[in-house]
């Protein structure tokens, strides 16, 4: 609870107090803002990620079906908007203290374990985020059609 209050304190004043160097400066993001609003995300992001990780990992729900209830938080997609670039334009990883997550987590001394396994920079490949169409040669449907044709020949 104390940590949550610390977070609230950090972000509550982030706008005004950051300039004097006493508060972390949250890196600006690109893309559309979260519909839930930043305040909600600042308080609840860890719960949202924890819930969705089990849904994805254990039930295979990956938010790729059209018309499905969307996954609220997918770690892989965070960095599409929240990637931080260095002077050379390369995205910084969690090793770098300018990383989006580290800016606040360093300040509040809350350790993040996510990046022991997950990548902490934007991904080059995003094919797995969308459902394969039947005309995609790597789709299960196209594959089964090819195999069925071979078997009849």
């Amino acid at each position, binding site marked *: 609870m104390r940590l949550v209050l610390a977070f609230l304190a950090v972000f509550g004043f982030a706008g005004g107090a950051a300039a004097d160097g006493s508060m972390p400066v949250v890196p600006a993001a690109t893309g559309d803002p979260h519909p839930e609003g930043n305040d909600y995300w600042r308080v609840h992001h860890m719960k949202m990620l924890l819930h969705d*990780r*089990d*849904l994805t*990992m*254990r*039930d*295979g*729900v*990956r938010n*790729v*079906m059209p018309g*499905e209830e969307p996954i609220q938080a997918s770690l*892989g997609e965070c960095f599409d908007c929240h990637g931080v670039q260095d002077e050379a334009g390369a995205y910084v*990883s969690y*090793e770098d203290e300018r990383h989006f997550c580290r800016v606040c987590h360093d300040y509040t001394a809350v350790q993040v374990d996510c990046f*022991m*396994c*997950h*990548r*902490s*920079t934007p*991904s080059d*490949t*995003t*094919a*797995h*985020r*969308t*459902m*394969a169409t039947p005309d*995609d040669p*790597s*789709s*299960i*449907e196209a*594959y*089964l059609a*090819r*195999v*069925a044709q*071979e*078997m009849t020949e």
Partner: protein
Amino acid sequence: MTNRAEMTRRDIMKSGAAAATVTLAPGVTLMAFGGTAAEAAGRADAGKRWGLLIDASKCSPDCNDCVTACKTENGWGKDIESDHISPEQAPEWIRKVTLRDKTTGRTTSAPVMCQHCEEPPCVDVCPTGASMKRADGIVLVDKHICIGCRYCMMACPYKARSFVHEAITDQPEQNPRGKGTVESCNLCAPRIDSGRIPACVEACEKAGHSAILFGDLKDPDSPISKALKQYPNAALREDLELNPGVRYTNL
């Protein structure tokens, strides 16, 4: 189909959710209905069981494309991962095995990966529940709760599991993996969930061998089920009665 309580018997049958009936004694039956709302919506579907049929006669001993494709898809096998360990300890999701008959000298070659057992010993022994079997039969490790005890590695008769010894970065987004956890072939679950075939199957087909046949073992009309019914085939270590989802023919 929003609420399981509202599901009719017909809905359950249509959704493909598993309905198992076990006869305990004459006149006494135990019925179990599997399937959550998520499964009914076509995610990890209990009405399916994904499997592979590997035809060793089509597999070329010189070809390593399935292994290469797996490395690329899942991000394992970089040199840094085996810097301080012997090669046998290095992460390995899939490997090529060549068999040689001592009497005749005949050699056959086939890939070996996690066999996706119906009764997986790795799941039995896991103290945390990290080693798990999905509703669609895929056996994999939930690295969020894996403590790296490696009990599953010892339990697996196929040597399919490996341990990550080194800190790694730049993992593929769809396959997070890291130091201190056990991992193995997950039949490319992220690809299957997005309607794609596993990377090894795709690579084998591209190489012109088509030695790995992928499909749903529960669907009697699927090419894999038809082939299993038609041709002689075997599971590795059939004596253990684990009923693997990966089967071999012409071995």
